[in-house]
């Protein structure tokens, strides 16, 4: 039932520096429920790619299984996509990335996909600092299987089934920081203004950028008693900072009051400019980030924004010291040692 939108292009649509319009970054028509948070997140991804002048075909989209994991079909239809099996997006993304370090990788997952069945792969992709833009569309439930609580559902939160969740929730951002992530952010599908730059920063980041996007499930978990409903999130959201993402090409123009900004220079030369609520906060300090998250949680607030960045950690290719050429581009000549070498080996085995 996947169908692509009509290719007709309005002559006046805004173009980016590649001469592409926003439409060139879209995908098939979504089959998610009307109003699903995941569709808004999809839109933010499209926007970020468009604004970053990313060549769509240089992106590879990977996902697990779930409503969230279906979304790669709904953006960047000029990119290759791989909708794998439940909870295993990280390993597929790892292999793909190893094969060709020159593409951009975006991995989409859900809270069920990441925090339950995918917990191990999530943790270890973080530990290896895979160069991946990992977006978890977090709705606190298993949408596609009809709304069971997930491991990110808050204790006491009550979805459409009407039974308060009795288990403690896992905070994926805290966990990511604990596990040594190098870029951790939290967004809200209802706040595109904040989300788009977070995604852009993630693309510019070298290593694993994890974004936990609170992305409400309107069908099963948008009740007034759910802490992952639009209403609840809107009322309890707290931004740690606002955020400018300045790609390499552009110059910094704006000026901010002393002490209220922090500059993070990304691997590709882009700059992230943080305008902070509290000038003492340091987004590059792990403990500070976790403490801040916990503090807000204690106040019943959900902290969003760029929570933590560390540009010092090497990404997997750097750790492995692999060739700068994409491995998938190597041929017999690069790879096969030839018969003469083999005869030497034979000799050593006699």
């Amino acid at each position, binding site marked *: 039932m996947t169908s692509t939108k009509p290719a007709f292009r309005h002559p006046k649509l805004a173009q980016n520096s590649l001469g592409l319009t926003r439409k060139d970054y879209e995908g098939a028509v979504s089959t998610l429920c009307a109003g699903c948070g995941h569709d808004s997140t999809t839109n933010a991804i499209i926007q970020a790619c468009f604004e970053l002048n990313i060549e769509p*075909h240089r992106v590879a989209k990977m996902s697990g299984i779930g409503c969230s994991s279906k979304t790669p079909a709904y953006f960047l239809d000029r990119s290759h996509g791989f*909708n794998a099996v439940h909870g295993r997006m990280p390993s597929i993304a790892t292999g793909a990335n190893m094969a060709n370090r020159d593409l951009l990788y975006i991995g989409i997952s859900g809270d069920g996909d990441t925090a339950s069945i995918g917990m191990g792969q999530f943790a270890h992709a973080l530990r290896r600092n895979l160069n991946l833009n990992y977006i978890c569309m977090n709705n606190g439930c298993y949408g596609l299987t009809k709304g069971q609580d997930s491991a990110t559902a808050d204790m006491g939160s009550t979805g459409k089934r009407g039974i308060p969740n009795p288990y403690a929730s896992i905070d994926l951002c805290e966990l990511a920081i604990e596990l040594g992530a190098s870029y951790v952010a939290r967004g809200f599908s209802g706040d595109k203004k904040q989300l788009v730059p977070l995604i852009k920063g993630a693309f510019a980041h070298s290593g694993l950028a994890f974004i936990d996007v609170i992305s409400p499930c309107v069908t099963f978990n948008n009740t007034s008693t759910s802490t992952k409903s639009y209403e609840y999130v809107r009322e309890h959201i707290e931004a740690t900072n606002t955020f400018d993402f300045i790609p390499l090409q552009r110059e910094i123009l704006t000026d901010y009051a002393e002490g209220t900004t922090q500059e993070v220079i990304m691997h590709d030369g882009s700059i992230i400019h943080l305008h902070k609520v509290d000038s003492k906060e340091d987004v590059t300090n792990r403990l500070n980030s976790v403490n801040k998250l916990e503090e807000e949680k204690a106040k019943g607030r959900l902290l969003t924004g760029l929570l933590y960045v560390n540009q010092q950690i090497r990404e997997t290719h750097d750790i*492995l*010291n692999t060739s700068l050429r994409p491995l*998938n581009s190597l041929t017999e000549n690069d790879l096969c040692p030839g018969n003469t070498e*083999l005869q030497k080996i034979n000799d050593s085995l006699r």
Partner: protein
Amino acid sequence: MNRIESVNDFVIRFANVNGSGSASANNLFARAVFRAGVPVSPKNIFPSNIQGLPTWYEVRVSGDGFLGRRGGIDMTVAINGQTMQKDYHDLLPGGYYLYDSSKQLPEDFQRDDVIVIGIPLTRLCSEEFSNPKLRQLLKNIIYVGALAFLLDIELALFTDSVTRQFKKKPKLAEPNIRALEIGFNYASEHYQDTCGLTITKTDKLGDDILMDGNSAFALGAIYGGATVAGWYPITPSTSVIEAFDRYSKTFRIEKDTGRSKVAILQAEDELAAIGIAIGAAWNGSRSFTPTSGPGISLMNEFLGLAYFAEIPVVVVDIQRAGPSTGMPTRTQQADLLSCAYASHGDTKNVLLFPCDPRECFELGAAAFDLAERLQTPIIVMSDLDLGMNDHVCGPLSWDDSRKYDRGKVLSYEDLETRHEKWGRYLDVDGDGICFRTYPGTHPTKGAYFTRGTSHTEYSAYTEESSVYKAGMERLLVKWDTAKTLVPSPRTKIRDPKKNIALVFYGTTTHAAYEAMARLEKRGTVTNSMRIRAFPFQDEVINFIDQHQQVFVIEQNRDAQLRTLLIAENSISPTKLQSVLNFDGLPITADFITEKISALLEAGSTAGKKQP
């Protein structure tokens, strides 16, 4: 008493404690026999722990070139106190019992059909060497020196090996050579004419090599162009990746940058290991994962995805004794069904069956061509015996004009010039294989969505029954194509009347060939087919059809190849009689010979051979 007398044809068993450094001494011995030009076949029988438990190293010497395991022990080198008793009793009548006579033999060692050879290893060692760590190691070298004398092997064969081994640290060679001499001298002083077993130089081996299957597979992966490997440690497959890593360091470092042309990732588990390999394969790298039984079980779901989404991944299964954790350091061929039909739903995977290290190399390299040509998982079915033991086999060779068969892949130019509408799952050639593209190839053409859900020929999601069904049927067409591409069986016809045939595969091969020779001596001439791949070619079926009586020899309990043979083809099960060894030790020629003789006997007593 009749002592065993034999030139170039006997079995020596070394009984040691694991973690005591005996492995290198025992290897030294086997390699010396090999260097004397005599076919040799060592088998390591070791425990699933790290230190302190019994371990055996069984070396078969066979001038006739029979490389399978043989029953019976002609000589035991009994270094392990825990098993002395058992080792003593396991000896054939007329056999030789070499032990460390620094301590006296217990009183109840009273067999009168055994020749006892005492060498005071501990004492000799202590007298000569002071470093306690070295002492433990050199004790083993001393008995090797003694064997050199007893079996009449030139000492130079050993000392050369040692010199070669310690080329970079000649200081270390010295005490080893000294230890060899001590053993040699002691034996020559005390055991002149005691031993009736002799090694005589021959040139039987030509340009053969002595190699383990796991290194050979790894080298096949290097030559076959693998660039990504995901793995998780598991006995007995770990040495595949160790060798791949070693060879990569020799052959795959960019000279100018020092960077590596492979990415080897120790994954968090087997699910991730195969996920990494699949992701890489999808993205156009040749990739593989080595594993063993429990890993295969964990890879089930992903194997189904690779089958259905048609991703060319290579898996090598170094089989060990199951079920479950089973006997991790014992050998078996018991993962055939699990691999062939891995995963839920209607799935089938291509299997390859190498029989020696040379084939591990060749089929290993071929697996990558096959995977990419067929766009499906290829599972290379090795086992512990093949993978971890050294085997004599023909030398490796590579045709430098050989090009990798990357299968049906559309390049930028192809996409530019192609007129027809391209569909990832559209079978334009009628062979069931469709064209694929690598991510990033073209700005506007050739992108597609890969999924484990049902898809149309254009890789869109569908729940349309007829479309789904057509896709599943195309996969069967591809299955038929696979039959034309996989390595063909090897046949030996000695009885043109085609009465009795033996069918086998993998490490059963050598013992089976030997059994054939023995049966022939007893007057039973047989033909044989060594199967090298699943699915089976028509050739396999015809061969079986043409024979009156077929014995299928396997190293598993449930006759798994036989199941595949009758399930996938219309062979009558009554025609296929099973010869099954599944005790975890490599199958022996004795076992096969006796079992087949007995079955033939039973058949003829029953008085009816069915047509």
